[in-house]
């Protein structure tokens, strides 16, 4: 039996592609700006005792663009609608990069939409020091390479997005970049209001995860998230010798951390 399936569901006024796999309590995963990276080993591990629900963001892959989603805050409102319509709230969530930012936006709109929230190197807050990489002014290759600290030490880096860099894959990247530019071009990959509204999040256990050598979203932004989420229970884990993808650069440790947090 296939480990995962992808189905189109008519929901929240659109046709949303959703990747599903595993068994057990549902776990929502919000993917990053280049799209769902494929079924990686961390998916496989987590799917052993959780049903992973991975919506493909509108404008990516088989999910058509929703014009009314004009920024990441509105993307968050969209996903809140999706969860309500699917009767999935409250649900555990892991958001990667822009997916983490999206989860944070969802929580500002409704803290009770989630049971527990894990944010992995989320963009969304302007770091106190350093700058978020302007992914829109570099090549796809540069963007992709900047997501890991040491590609040679991360065997799964080769497998990301199916591994093969076919013309179709580049077209998919181009579409993904176009959609993330559409909603996050200005301000550059953050929402200046997010730190203020995150203070309103209460009763939502949150875990922030970062790689110390993150070259996409500087690790200094972790502090900003922690400060902004001061009115809820928040933990921070920083992996050394790790870039923007702890889930593949520190896969075993990452999976352990998720299991402990969501237990």
């Amino acid at each position, binding site marked *: 039996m296939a480990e995962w399936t992808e189905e189109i569901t008519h929901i929240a006024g659109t046709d949303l592609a959703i990747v599903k796999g595993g068994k057990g309590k549902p776990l929502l995963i919000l993917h990053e700006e280049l799209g769902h990276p494929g079924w990686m080993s961390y998916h496989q591990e987590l799917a052993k005792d959780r049903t992973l629900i991975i919506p493909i963001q509108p404008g990516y892959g088989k999910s058509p663009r929703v014009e009314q989603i004009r920024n990441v805050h509105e993307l968050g409102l969209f996903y809140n609608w999706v969860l309500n319509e699917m009767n999935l709230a409250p649900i555990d969530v892991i958001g990667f990069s822009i997916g983490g930012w999206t989860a944070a936006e969802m929580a500002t709109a409704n803290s009770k939409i989630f049971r527990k929230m894990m944010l992995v190197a989320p963009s969304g807050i302007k770091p106190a020091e350093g700058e978020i990489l302007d992914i*829109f*002014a*570099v*090549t*796809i*290759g*540069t*963007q*992709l*390479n900047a997501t890991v600290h040491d*590609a*040679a030490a991360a065997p799964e*880096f*080769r497998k990301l997005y199916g*591994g093969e*860099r076919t*013309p179709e894959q*580049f*077209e998919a*990247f*181009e*579409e993904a*970049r*176009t*959609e*993330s*530019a*559409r909603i996050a*071009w*200005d301000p550059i990959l953050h929402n200046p209001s997010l730190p203020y509204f995150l203070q309103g999040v209460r009763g939502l256990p949150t875990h922030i995860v970062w790689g110390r050598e993150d070259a996409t979203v500087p690790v200094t932004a972790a502090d900003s998230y922690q400060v902004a989420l001061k009115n809820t229970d928040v933990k921070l884990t920083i992996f050394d010798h790790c870039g923007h993808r702890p889930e593949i650069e520190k896969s075993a440790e990452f999976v352990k951390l998720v299991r402990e947090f969501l237990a």
Partner: protein
Amino acid sequence: MHIMYFTERPYRDVPEDEVIKNRSFFGVPNRFYDAQVGARLYNEYLDEDVYAEEVGFDAIMLNEHHGNPFCMGAVMNVEAAILARITKKVRIVLLGNPLPVVKNPVRLAEELAEIDLISKGRLVPGWVRGAGSEQIFNQANPAYNREYFNEAHDLVLACWTKPGPFRWEGKHFNFRYVNPWALPYQKPRPPIWIPGVISAETVVWCAKHRYPYIGLGTALQSTVELWNLYGQTAADEGYMAGTENFGYLQQIHVAETEEEAQKQGRAAMFGGGAANFSRPEHTLPPGYNSKEATRRLAKQATDYGFLGITSEKLKESQRGDLRHIGIPKQNGDTRDKLRKGEISVEEAKKKIYANYQKAQDGLQIIIGTPKTVIPKLKLIMEVLRPGVFGLFQAQGPLTTQQRLTSIRLMGQEVLPAMREIAKGLGIVDPFEREPGSRPYTSGTQYDSLVDLEALKRAPKRDESVRV
């Protein structure tokens, strides 16, 4: 025939090594900018335009780019406003205002109306999407590039033609009280021309709006295809396209002797020329091209490098350096090799200048005396039959005197010859015949827009040579 003088107004004192090291003109750090030089050059270029009028040009064409020494016209409308006052009879052709980066189209409509008024009706505005780098420089979301273009276009035209006050509530622009007091001198509005590089979408859009399309030095073979597409679209729209619907821009430098011309003309290769305008990541920001255009660009052979939009660059923008994950090394171009440190600046420069002759052979640049440039211009006129012709003063570190001599020789010898040739070919310009004014009856034969026999005589461009 309407003949325009055009220069990019290059900042000619930028160190070439810095351009090459930066792998493009866009993004050369502005610590290399000297205000004394800038002040001198802005004034010189305005004087040059006045001189071009004196020697017989019909129009001065201006363009706009931001953040680079390739073109100093960052705010083209300022120069246009000055020209409106200091010139007497030339048309002031703006090709074009980059609509997607204009945050306030109402103000743009006002600026252009003022220029048209001060010049007493000599303005020809045009619109562009802006190079990829302009979106980055101006914080204009490339994913909305075409939408911004279309809506800003409609709003500017509404400002000029719809009685105010009115409210504008669009997708991207909202204005509560549109009632510009300054309205254009020309009625119902100034004529509009559109420059283009390779986009079929733009050609079709122009034909639907009956706007003349000005090919910016595009390879003759692909230009012929685009103009036939324009002609077909025009017929579908119920009108007959003709020479009045087309224009062409050609980079050129003229000197007294062939030897001097060849020596001076090397300046056109400076820093890699227009092909080195911006790096791949700045040329094609995400969403700047439609999915269809990206696909077409990926498939088609490199045929043109104006502002560096090439299929090779598209591939480079997508690929980056992925050798460590098993993507084989490409036979990259000079820029790519520089990036990887595989060649030195000196070697890169040698490679650039090695293409000087080939660039002339392929008509990317025309260099010579009036006697030797005229037959080449004639061939282009025969193939494309453009009603508007722009002579684009060669880029690079030419001296002021060399530039003025080139303008003088063009005025004295090249322009009269071109006018004769145009007469012989039956070419009329958009002021002699209103574009889109001739109705077309479905099913009948329409005018041939190009000369395919002449095209056979035209040299094939070496696709690897870009200036």
